[in-house]
């Protein structure tokens, strides 16, 4: 039973105002196409979860989609701060934004607890840090076997997880390679899962390498075929990271008007991702074309 649909329809059906959303992907495979569609559909009051909010949430926050951010690292990696997030936090532009912060392992642990249906997940972190003082969700408990207190965090169960990957079949059996981030945990923790892929492949391709299947169709609600859907982040083997854009966003996003103008041109001004890809121009995709480095096949016979 095919779950193939358009990005428009997937977002319209599964993402509602006020929902808790996780668009995961650590540096790689960040679901910008989905984010832009959420912006176009004018969603409001979202609770946005991501280890690294990155440009994807900076843009959504600039567009006024969010009321709260749950995160562990708030920056444009290697470049600087996220200016739209700052404006929202410091000046409530375009809307106030609440922050709830963890360390990286704390965020991973929240997703694991959510995915494992556990009431909490223990981690040896936060001792001596001020983080628990500003985030009462971080607690400490004693081990029944002794050995001192251990930190715990509660489960995080998004309403929707949006996962970008290299390939899936029409049922949503999804294979991802390169950086794996916390995508599997976020997907299993979520109520609904939208998978966005560079290629929709025949089930036989998936079945040729079952260990590579990170997310089974079992938990997937919608499959969207969206080539270049993670730009300006990257997809290993498909396109490189557009570091130039990450640098340019630092300039654009410093200025509120420039940010709005960018959203007008590149989000509201295009109907869908295909139009964005077309508008970005062939030379962009040439510039970002990766080298070839193929895995050696293994025998599952």
């Amino acid at each position, binding site marked *: 039973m095919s779950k193939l649909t358009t990005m428009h329809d997937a977002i319209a059906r599964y993402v509602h105002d006020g929902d808790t959303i996780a668009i995961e992907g650590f*540096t790689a495979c960040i679901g910008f196409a989905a984010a832009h569609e959420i912006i176009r559909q004018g969603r409001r009051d979202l609770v946005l979860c991501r280890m690294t909010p990155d440009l994807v949430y900076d843009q959504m926050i600039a567009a006024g989609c969010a009321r709260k951010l749950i995160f562990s690292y*708030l920056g444009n990696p290697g470049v600087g701060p996220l200016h739209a997030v700052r404006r929202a936090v410091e000046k409530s532009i375009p809307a106030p934004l609440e922050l709830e912060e963890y360390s*990286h392992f*704390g965020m991973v642990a929240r997703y694991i607890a959510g995915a494992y249906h556990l009431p909490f997940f223990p981690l040896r972190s936060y001792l001596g840090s001020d983080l628990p003082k500003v985030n009462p969700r971080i607690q400490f408990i004693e081990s029944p076997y002794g050995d001192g207190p251990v930190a715990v965090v509660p489960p995080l169960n998004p309403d929707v997880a949006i996962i970008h990957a290299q390939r899936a079949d029409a049922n949503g059996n999804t294979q991802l390679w390169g950086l794996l*981030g916390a995508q599997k945990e976020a997907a299993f923790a979520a109520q609904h899962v939208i998978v966005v892929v560079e290629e929709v492949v025949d089930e036989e391709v998936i079945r040729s390498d079952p260990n590579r299947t990170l997310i089974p169709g079992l938990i997937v609600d919608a499959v969207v075929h969206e080539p270049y859907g993670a730009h300006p982040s990257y997809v*290993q083997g498909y396109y490189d990271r557009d570091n130039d854009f990450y640098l340019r966003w630092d300039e654009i996003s410093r200025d509120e008007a420039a940010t709005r103008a960018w959203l007008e041109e590149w989000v509201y001004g295009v109907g869908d991702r295909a139009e964005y890809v077309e508008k970005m121009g062939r030379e962009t995709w040439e510039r970002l074309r990766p*080298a070839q480095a193929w895995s050696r096949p293994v025998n599952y016979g």
Partner: protein
Amino acid sequence: MSDYSPSEMMIVAAARALAGVRTVFVGVGLPNIACNLAQRTVAPDLELVYESGVYGARPRRLPLSIGDPALITGALSVCSMADLFGLYLQGGRLEVAFLGGAQIDRYGNLNTTVIGDYARPKVRLPGSGGACEIAIHARQVFIIMRLSRRSFVERLDFLTSPGHLGGAGERERLGMPGRGPQVVVTDKCVFRFDPASGEMGVVSLHPGVRLEDVRAEMGWAPRVSPDLAETEPPTQEELRLLREELDPMGVYRS
């Protein structure tokens, strides 16, 4: 070649601190280039681990972020962040981690969260990322930071990642597995931590730097080692590796 920048001195001093080390948890920027230099000089068996999940990277170009695709191609292993933080880091498999921050205090505690009040910050910084647990678990923490009065403060605005907390012994009392900060490498001098007090003290001044220059950039009067030395300047080979192989564009020179 005898002319070199304070940044180059800092990178070289950081690389040398890695002598003999086998596994290092590394961020991008200065730590990354220091580790690459160490691999080619004092630590040939050094394996780099990135918090993005990469072990044994062999990048063909200088990575621009810890999630750069060049780190993945040809790596020995790429795993989930659950595995990276659970198995590698919390599992106690990492000898050294490099950290930095916007503020550091005398005990090596680090702030990467806010300048000013948490609820109404003057500057909202990126937050912990993995730093809080890295600071707790890596067997040793090496810190690289430029020396400045804004950064080396008497009192942190926010303690993101624990160093020696209130002084020597406190980590042990809390059951922290790692030994905490061992060295702070700056562009002016090198600090090491006094085992008795847990407080950093100047152990070597980079060539041409006076103790007053260091004191002028610090929010407290630092201890000074009775064996205060002059940092060995970069060798010609170190500079050649930096300039020709590791950073031909000179990104990290100034």
